[in-house]
């Protein structure tokens, strides 16, 4: 009889579930895809319902439900910190108590009732343990050092682990605890630069490429690197440990000047724009220095050649690349859902391998397409109801038409197979365009994604052609399949591939293998046959502020709400009807 384990993350951000059957992941999805609330933190009711239905089981058949962290340990940290920061935590304490006494302390009961899982089946992992498990257990390494870096879990902010061949597969080695946190440092700088925390970190990374790290002296005073891999933050410049809603203090302002006005236009050609870019560049460089510093210590403590990485900081593709290139490890593997969503997966796998003590089967290729899928018949029924213009195409026709669209300057939505688990679109819920020429980038930024002009787009390229266009470090063979690392666009192609070449010549490449993603690979090949370049601009299929599309209706809504030219939903090519847009069909 099969053993079913449901891993779950919730109540901070990016609630998600991962359903594991006898150690194999059969379904995983974030709640935001169902509720359409970006980073939805609520209990993942709908994602769980879907996952169980997908597996054809009832909640009563679950052997274990594993929550990704320990609520009481987190509460203890909040209490202890409130006391340690007395009296200046007087505003955050009442707020935290309301949240915790009102709900979070009793979450075990709520989970048990909501998901109809008896209390004895309910287990609790630890926040960083879940991250570590999500990084190591699906990785291709039989042994590895593991590094988890994020804002804060229960109390841990950074941790080193050892990934073993036998149980315990994930073994703790050393940790840094709150309030010293590299993740919170980066988030505070994100807020300083006028972007939303937990959302705008990518923008800081993108902005950094426009600047020079000329504030490194100040940054090194803010994040002091100590011996034995340690780091110490200047806690007078930050206030996440005692303020309920702000993250930096007047001291940071006295060091770096006034913070950037949220939403203010960013023009790197102006002195003001250059100033912000330089702060972003310095922030990014500081994070990279600190991550390298920690990684060197991790190598000292766990003398293994490979490193697995997870936690929110693991989504910083630029830092990952520098870690791979300059760090002390031969190979790097990053969990593509490195943020809290991935904790659901880690919790479930940890339960299977370390609590139930089942050996690992080395997985040479981790699949990200674990989310919802729609059959062509289901899509057809919905599209018919919407009466949006559509054509039904054979597989070959679909490729040909998509390439026709792309080579004539079209931007298409590509909605195929199962949705990706994690924040990256890897050719299942993607917006695709011809990468040749900067005009495409500007159009996608301004009229489709409605986002800032400075933000770069990523390329997808066939594995066979990747080296021709991009300089990719050998240590990054794994990460470049999941867009969690960057490469350098070879100088001779930078002008031609302007839409995906960032200002510093870098690109967050996705290398597509035919055996891993056959349809997407075929599309790249077909595009390459027509243009000589099997490279596409690939960005997540969502509009600004929305989660990635998850249903055919979401996809068609995005088509009608933006300047997309067509959407490919399974075998259907859907286009816009001006009549719908103009409202004439309001019969």
């Amino acid at each position, binding site marked *: 009889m099969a053993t079913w384990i449901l891993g779950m993350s919730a109540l901070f951000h990016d609630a998600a579930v991962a359903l594991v059957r006898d150690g194999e992941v059969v379904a995983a999805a974030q709640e935001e895809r169902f509720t359409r609330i970006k980073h939805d933190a609520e209990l993942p009711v709908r994602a769980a319902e879907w996952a169980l239905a997908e597996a054809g089981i009832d909640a009563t058949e679950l052997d274990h439900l594993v929550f990704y962290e320990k609520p009481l340990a987190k509460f203890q940290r909040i209490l202890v910190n409130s006391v340690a920061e007395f009296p200046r935590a007087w505003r955050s304490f009442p707020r935290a108590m309301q949240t915790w006494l009102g709900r979070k302390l009793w979450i075990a009961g709520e989970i048990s009732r909501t998901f109809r899982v008896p209390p004895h089946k309910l287990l609790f992992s630890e926040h960083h343990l879940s991250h570590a498990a999500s990084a190591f257990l699906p990785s291709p390494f039989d042994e590895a050092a593991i590094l988890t870096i994020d804002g804060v879990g229960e109390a841990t902010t950074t941790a080193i682990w050892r990934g073993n061949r036998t149980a315990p597969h994930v073994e703790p080695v050393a940790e840094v605890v709150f309030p010293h946190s590299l993740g919170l440092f980066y988030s505070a700088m994100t807020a300083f630069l006028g972007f939303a925390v937990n959302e705008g970190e990518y923008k800081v990374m993108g902005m950094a490429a426009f600047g020079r790290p000329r504030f490194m002296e100040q940054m090194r005073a803010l994040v002091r690197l100590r011996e034995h891999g340690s780091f110490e933050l200047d806690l007078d410049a930050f206030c996440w440990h005692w303020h309920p809603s702000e993250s930096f203090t007047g001291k940071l302002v006295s060091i770096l000047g006034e913070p950037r006005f949220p939403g203010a236009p960013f023009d790197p050609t102006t002195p003001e724009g250059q100033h912000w870019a330089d702060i972003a560049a310095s922030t990014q460089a500081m994070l990279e220095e600190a991550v390298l510093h920690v990684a060197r210590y991790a190598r000292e403590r766990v003398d293994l050649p490979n490193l697995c990485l997870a936690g929110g900081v693991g989504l910083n593709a630029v830092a990952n690349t520098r870690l791979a290139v300059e760090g002390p490890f031969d190979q790097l593997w990053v969990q593509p859902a490195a943020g809290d969503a991935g904790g659901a997966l880690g919790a479930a796998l940890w339960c299977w391998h370390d609590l139930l003590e089942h050996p690992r089967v080395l997985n040479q290729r981790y699949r990200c397409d674990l989310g919802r899928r729609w059959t062509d018949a289901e899509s057809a029924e919905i599209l018919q109801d919407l009466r949006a213009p559509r054509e039904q195409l054979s597989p070959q026709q679909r490729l040909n038409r998509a390439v026709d669209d792309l080579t004539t300057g079209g931007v298409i939505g590509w909605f195929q197979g199962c949705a990706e688990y994690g924040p990256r679109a890897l050719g299942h819920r993607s917006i695709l365009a011809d990468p040749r020429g900067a005009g495409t980038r500007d159009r996608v930024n301004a009229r489709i994604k409605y986002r800032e002009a400075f933000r770069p787009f990523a390329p997808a390229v066939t594995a066979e052609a990747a080296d021709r266009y991009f300089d990719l470090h050998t240590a990054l063979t794994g990460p470049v399949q999941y867009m969690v690392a960057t490469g350098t666009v070879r100088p001779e192609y930078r002008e031609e591939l302007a839409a995906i070449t960032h200002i510093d010549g870098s690109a967050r490449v996705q290398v597509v293998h035919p055996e891993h993603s056959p349809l997407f690979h075929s599309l790249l090949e077909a595009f390459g046959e027509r243009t000589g370049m099997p490279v596409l601009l690939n960005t997540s299929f969502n509009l600004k502020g929305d989660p990635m599309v998850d249903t055919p209706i979401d996809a068609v809504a995005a088509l009608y709400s933006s300047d997309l030219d067509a959407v490919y939903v399974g075998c259907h090519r859907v286009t816009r009807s001006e009549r719908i847009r103009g*409202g004439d069909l309001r019969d």
Partner: protein
Amino acid sequence: MGKLRRTWLKLVSPLAWSRPGAERRFLASFSETERGSAVDMLAAAELTERRDLRRKYFIHALDETRHARLFARRAGDFGAESVRARAALNDANTLQAHGIVGGRSLFERYGELEFLAFVHRSEALAVEQFGVYHDLELLDEKTDQMLQNILRDEHFHVGYSRTELERYTRSGKGADVQRALRKVFWRRPWEAWMRFSVQIGHVVTSFWMTVLYLVVVAPFKLGAARERPGFRDVPPDPRSRMTAARGQG
């Protein structure tokens, strides 16, 4: 009640719109409401079993998405950027307030008929509210023009939802329609009261928690210290892994 509300709106609106920053605040708030509504309409389009209605919900969702963007853009003209970062932070909470509760959209919670009644009433109120703003010339020309365009869509929303309710009535479900409309009518003041109660609860709890913090927690400060920076080894847990996993701490 409609006349009473309209009179109330006529009295209050000039005061509300004359306050500094009113344009920015109201337009940003309208944008958030429309965005939440778009989420709900898309959910309805996905979940409805009435395939003839799916398209109307879909068009309605597209309208709301467009309105959200128009309101946000206009709010931006009045300097709403200053609240954008904060709004993005609170986005999930904002949307929760506009219908998504515990992962369930309005459609799932109300069902088709009551959802239609809700749409009809909400849209009718919006038409009335925006109409008052126009009649009293509270808005600048550009905003007023934008609102007039949006009103055209809102009239469509009122119209199709009314048509559908009438269709239910003709099919012998008149009593159900009336019940749904009554429920929707009374839900609004009830939810306003509930929100008010929660706010009062927060204020009272905050007060007592602050007192608790300043009086009871204070002595513990003597023995408390901030965690030291740097790596520390993780000691082995004496409990078995399964025992530890059963605990929340």
